[in-house]
């Protein structure tokens, strides 16, 4: 396929997808619309997590960063009484600053130690929420976060984002924005630089890439969008607590990325989509459900380590190979 026909393909299919999402409130039931909203927030989260993974750094604290955005939103909106158009950017920036504080010690570690250390730092933040009742509200968290609205009831430009359709569109706008920005970064020289760090750190260093700075920067950008997802979540629920940002949620996030793959931009989207569908369809399994997810995690990591995005290539490869193949190593 030539480059240009590929991009027309991409353009057409993304237009179809966007059209579906724009029309969705008229196409699906009220509850399904709620699911779509959750899906959109998760897409932001998974996509920002993938950005981290491009430098080879997998973390176990992404949900905590999302929580930082949510807490910042709660505090700024409820205690400082600021309107959302100030709260949201500030929440993202606060998350970015916390990410920076995480990234500085973390950038001294690599691979598995990085992974575990990120978890430990995340636990530290979670305990800060629990410990400091002012302003974080302890285990209870922050509730009664003001509604998201533009203008006041009665004014002609009043929009009440408490209304689930409106909130859906609100989230959709941010999801598209996030995707556009992250897609551009992915395709940019900067994105290539970050991916090169994953391939060969020493080489990157020797051609003048400041690997430490880049890793810190990726962490911060990723944190920024995790903060955005957190901010949206805080407005959606109106009440947040440390339990929302626990290990179980983190494992779901990892499952999305493992199932979808992180090599290409679209992997995490595929992951979130397919797992969300499976997640909803398997509700009747109740207590058995975690076992199913455990099984999915194992099967993917063992049989399809690159995630669904590599499935077509794998199938092609399997068809190509014939029985004469002998195992290596």
């Amino acid at each position, binding site marked *: 396929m030539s480059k240009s026909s590929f991009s027309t393909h991409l353009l057409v299919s993304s237009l179809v997808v966007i059209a579906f999402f724009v029309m969705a409130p008229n196409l699906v039931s009220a509850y399904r619309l709620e699911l779509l909203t959750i899906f959109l927030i998760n897409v932001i989260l998974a996509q920002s997590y993938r950005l981290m993974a491009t430098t080879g750094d997998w973390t176990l604290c992404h949900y905590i960063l999302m929580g930082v955005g949510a807490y910042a939103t709660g505090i700024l909106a409820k205690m400082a009484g600021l309107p959302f158009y100030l709260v949201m950017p500030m929440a993202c920036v606060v998350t970015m600053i916390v990410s920076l504080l995480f990234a500085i010690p973390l950038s001294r570690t690599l691979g598995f130690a990085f992974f575990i250390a990120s978890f430990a730092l995340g636990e530290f933040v979670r305990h800060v929420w629990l410990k400091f009742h002012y302003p974080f509200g302890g285990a209870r968290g922050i509730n009664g976060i003001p509604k998201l609205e533009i203008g006041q009831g009665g004014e002609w430009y009043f929009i009440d984002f408490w209304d689930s359709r409106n909130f859906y569109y609100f989230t959709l706008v941010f999801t598209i924005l996030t995707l556009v*920005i992250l897609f*551009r*970064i992915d*395709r*940019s*020289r*900067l*994105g*290539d*630089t970050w*991916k*090169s760090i994953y*391939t*060969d750190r*020493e*080489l990157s*260093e*020797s*051609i*003048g*890439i*400041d*690997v*430490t700075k880049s890793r810190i*920067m990726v962490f911060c*950008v990723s944190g920024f969008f995790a903060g955005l997802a957190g901010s949206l979540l805080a407005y959606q629920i109106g009440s947040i607590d440390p339990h929302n940002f626990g290990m179980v949620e983190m494992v779901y996030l990892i499952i999305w990325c493992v199932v979808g793959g992180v090599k290409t931009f679209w992997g995490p989207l595929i992951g979130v989509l397919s797992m969300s569908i499976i997640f909803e369809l398997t509700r009747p399994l109740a207590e058995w459900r975690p076992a199913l997810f455990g099984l999915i995690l194992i099967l993917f990591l063992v049989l399809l380590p690159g995630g669904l995005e590599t499935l077509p290539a794998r199938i092609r490869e399997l068809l190509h190979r014939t029985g004469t193949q002998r195992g290596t190593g």
Partner: protein
Amino acid sequence: MSFFSVENLTKKFGGLVANNNISMDVEKGEIRGVIGPNGAGKTTFFNLVSGFYRPTSGKVTFKGQTISGMATNKIARLGAVRTFQRPALFSDFTVLENVSIAQHLNTNASLLNAIIGHDNHREADSLERAIEIVDFLGMAEDRDTMANNLSHGLQRQLGVAMALATEPELLMLDEPVAGMNSGEKAVMVNMIQKIRDKWGVTVLLVEHDMRTVMNLCEKITVLDFGEKLAEGSPDDIRSNRAVIEAYLGADDSVT
């Protein structure tokens, strides 16, 4: 002050002195060889001057600036770039992309530019320069080959191409012909000479292969047991008694 100079450089690993009080001066445009028996401390020396290790004592200056203790990437930014003994490349990218990633120092790759779409690496002039480098190194046919599908020799050449793409003033090559057959070696020697002649790049060469070093270098520094044993022109070195004893060997059947 020389273009590149090393003063009393020492590196200890625990009790082991891997580099001891090494000094040398390299002039602009020179091709300098560093040789020595195995374990003499060549790689350590290389890692010290390229910023991978921090010296225990001593100092390295480049263009009048002290670079010892500086991070590798900072040194690279100043114009002193190293290559690796192993084939080192970004395996998921094509040859041209590899070179073009290496060009990033001379582009406006910032986050903002990435987001507004102003740092596409297929920008006309940087692309032109990347192609120029690739073609200059005789890899025109392989521009769009994935780097990990290249032959050993070409992989090593790509390493040099990437170093060149950063527009260095000092190129530090770690055993550039290791693992090459004689044909490939000749290509590489020729290439290093052309790089110096065309771009005026100063070259610092750590190498085991005596023929390559002797053919290429104006001046050679010999290390042994972490210390500078001798320094001089290829002919001086060839006839230096101490070097013959420690390295070249009296019995030429084992060299």
